[in-house]
């Protein structure tokens, strides 16, 4: 069962660092996070890695494995050949704190910029009635575990630090879409602000975010594209624009 794994693990901080070669035992059925823990316990007691649930539910152990943004807890070592070197590096879009741990505070700042849910003032607790089909659209986006892999892979910010200021990123486009499709939310014009304040227009729908999403949320197809389409509709059709100002639910297909 046991096999010998050859790893290259990035060690260092935001200013300086290098890949280090490590050889370590691995067992059938183990995931990359298990291997990192074994390295930690036996060879590098101070190797920094962020993790939590180890079941793909919290989105803490995001890193890049052979260049691909992944959750280390959901990446089986059996996916790599016997002679293959597994290269483990921190998320590239964010500053490194130490080793595999990055400073993801960018995402929390962006979360703060998305206007919160607004409940109808006259709807008392317990009175809400919604149909399952109507909540399911937003529920898909509420599956998000905030691993920020979509943010990491998005080429608008991955190698363009200068875009970060005006671009919220896929995670927050689905947050806006979620609120926009929420059957009860009363705040108007979420799609328009996605365009005007959160940089929706910078996305050119290459679907990289959808590909890396461990929750298989169809970020591009179900959130970004419908919002882009409606923004265009509303922007160029004065009657629809007027309608969207008068009543919030201009619908999204």
């Amino acid at each position: 069962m046991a096999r010998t794994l050859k790893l290259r693990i990035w060690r260092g901080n935001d200013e300086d660092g290098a890949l280090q070669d490590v050889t370590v035992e691995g067992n059938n059925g183990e995931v990359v996070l298990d291997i990192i823990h074994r390295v930690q316990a036996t060879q590098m007691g101070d190797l920094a890695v962020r993790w939590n649930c180890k079941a793909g539910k919290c989105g803490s152990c995001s890193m890049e494995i052979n260049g691909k943004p992944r959750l280390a807890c959901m990446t089986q070592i059996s996916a790599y050949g016997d002679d293959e070197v597994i290269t483990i590096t921190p998320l590239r879009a964010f500053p490194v704190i130490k080793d595999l741990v990055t400073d993801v505070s960018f995402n929390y700042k962006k979360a703060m910029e998305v206007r919160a849910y607004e409940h109808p003032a006259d709807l008392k607790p317990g009175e809400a009635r919604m149909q399952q089909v109507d909540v399911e659209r937003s529920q898909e986006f509420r599956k998000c575990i905030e691993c920020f892999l979509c943010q990491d892979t998005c080429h608008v910010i991955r190698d363009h630090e200068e875009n970060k200021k005006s671009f919220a990123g896929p995670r927050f486009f689905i947050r806006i879409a979620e609120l926009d499709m929420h059957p009860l939310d009363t705040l108007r014009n979420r799609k328009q602000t996605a365009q005007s304040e959160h940089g929706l227009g910078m996305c050119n729908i290459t679907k990289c975010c959808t590909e890396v999403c461990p929750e298989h949320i169809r970020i591009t197809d179900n959130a970004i594209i419908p919002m882009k389409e409606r923004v265009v509709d509303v922007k160029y059709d004065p009657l629809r624009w007027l309608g969207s100002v008068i009543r919030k639910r201009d619908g999204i297909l």
Partner: protein
Amino acid sequence: MTANLERHKYDIVVIGAGGAGLRAALEAREAGLTVAIVCKSLFGKAHTVMAEGGAAASMGNVNEKDNWMVHFRDTMRGGKFLNHYRMAELHAKEAPDRIWELETWGALFDRTKEGKISQRNFGGHEYPRLAHVGDRTGLELIRTMQQRIVALQQVDARETGNPETNIRVFAEVTITEILNENGKVAGAYGYRRENGAEVLFEAPAVVIATGGVGKTFKITSNSWEGTGDGHALALKSGANLVDMEFLQFHPTGMVWPLSVKGILVTESVRGEGGILTNSLGERFMFKYIPDVFKNQYADNEAEADRWYIDQDNNRRPPELLPRDEVARAINSEVKAGRGTEHGGVFLDVSKRLSAEIIKKRLPSMWHQFYELAGVDITKEAMEVGPTCHYVMGGVEVNPDTAAAVGVEGLFAAGEVAGGMHGSNRLGGNSLTDLLVFGRRAGMGAVAYVKSHGANPVSDSTIVKAATRIAAPFTRVGGENAYSLHQELQEITHNLVGIIRTRAELVEAIEKIADIRKRSANISVTGDRMFNPGFHLAFDLDNMLLVAESTAKSALLREESRGGHTRDDFPGMNPTWRQVNHISSFDGTQVNIKAQSLPVLPKELFDLFDVHELEKYMTPQEIAKGGSN
């Protein structure tokens, strides 16, 4: 040394950003006080996200016969009547409001046909009672409250220009000490995990909401965070723990592959119709229905299967017995040689539901087994076995205010608090526990702060806390924290596990004491920058106190009840039901004393059929008929 220290002043410090901590913080902020939320992980990653099945609240949306009294009865039965009745009462009464309130903050629960919040069946609950979102209900709770906090920060940003005026989250900070001055809480002290830099919080009230202790054990559904920090912090600051012998082994954890051993398989699988079989193909749970539950559970397959269609005229399938019963049954089957290849039993939902419905109702289970074990649960059975899941014991609190007994200014809510669940927690009761008592802890802390002023921290207290953090770096060639942790997990797993005996518990207590002695000599390599070896040194100290408290309480309780099974005292004993075990810490070791359980008041006593109570209580208690 105190000159460059990072210092903060707040009205209330909440330790822990899971459901209970966030709910407490929201309550305090809404009351106009300033709050710091301190958490070991990033904001939104707390272990609450792992809660799958749902939140139990008797809204009566699916079966209108449900109400708080039925919920209260179920909770007391589940806990084998060792629950603090007042906590169970408050919980049952307030849970529906706490769920509806989440909806006003944007939560989106699954719906019934009428558009109300849908409710599902769960072990020990008489009616469908669990509000849920597929099988990711905990994530919905966390995200809703996380986003509610952001909403309030946006209000502050608009009004004051600074989102963190009233509520601020300190992520990736570990608290190592609750600071007391003049016998009252004065704040908390810790370090930033990122760089080891120390942080002082001055606050007259501290709410502990740190969750559980699972990492004390070898096989657990808990993440690395479940190291009993709050339990230990409370003990060391002079508070008590109650009934630490009661640990819940969830009957269904993954058993294979090795790397995921212990990860939770939600009880919803059984709630949705999953059946348990052994390697002979027997549906074995029918053999394990205890006398006290004979009236509620079907003793044959035909009736059990009919229940899924007609719940009014059939008894429930025994797969839905309370967790302690199911965990012991699985343990017995495996011990008798009827287990699976990897030491579990089979859990199969594929024969009752279509692939489409399984993927819709149990999406993360499908995902988890497909990705981690290569098993497609829409086609084949899962292999499952017991995993250490939840600690019923915890900080002894006043049920109404969540104030810790023994220390002024200290509050506790959620898993870290004891009493609510008695000897065994029902599934679904934990998510509403943390909402109900998180809110009450917030209210309790607010009332306390308003009637007491600030309580400044002295320099000598700071120096003491700082010295303790620096100590592991000053030692060279000492013990390795990782090895000691592994040793501790072997001891708890082998000697303080699901089935316990006197001899093994005595041995465990000696061995835990030995590790504690050696842990005083832990040395750490590397520096303070995000150093997991350094972090574990402090987590381990907490786990050792928890393990000592559990082993000592377990040794004294000479009966079997809920999450405490003694091979040498197999039955439930009504005299023991009247006893709580109170742990306290004298600076050297944990001491246990027996204390009388509060007596059920007459109005709650009368909610039960007296013949049912006779199974749990002494004839004298029955004759008395409650406290008044």
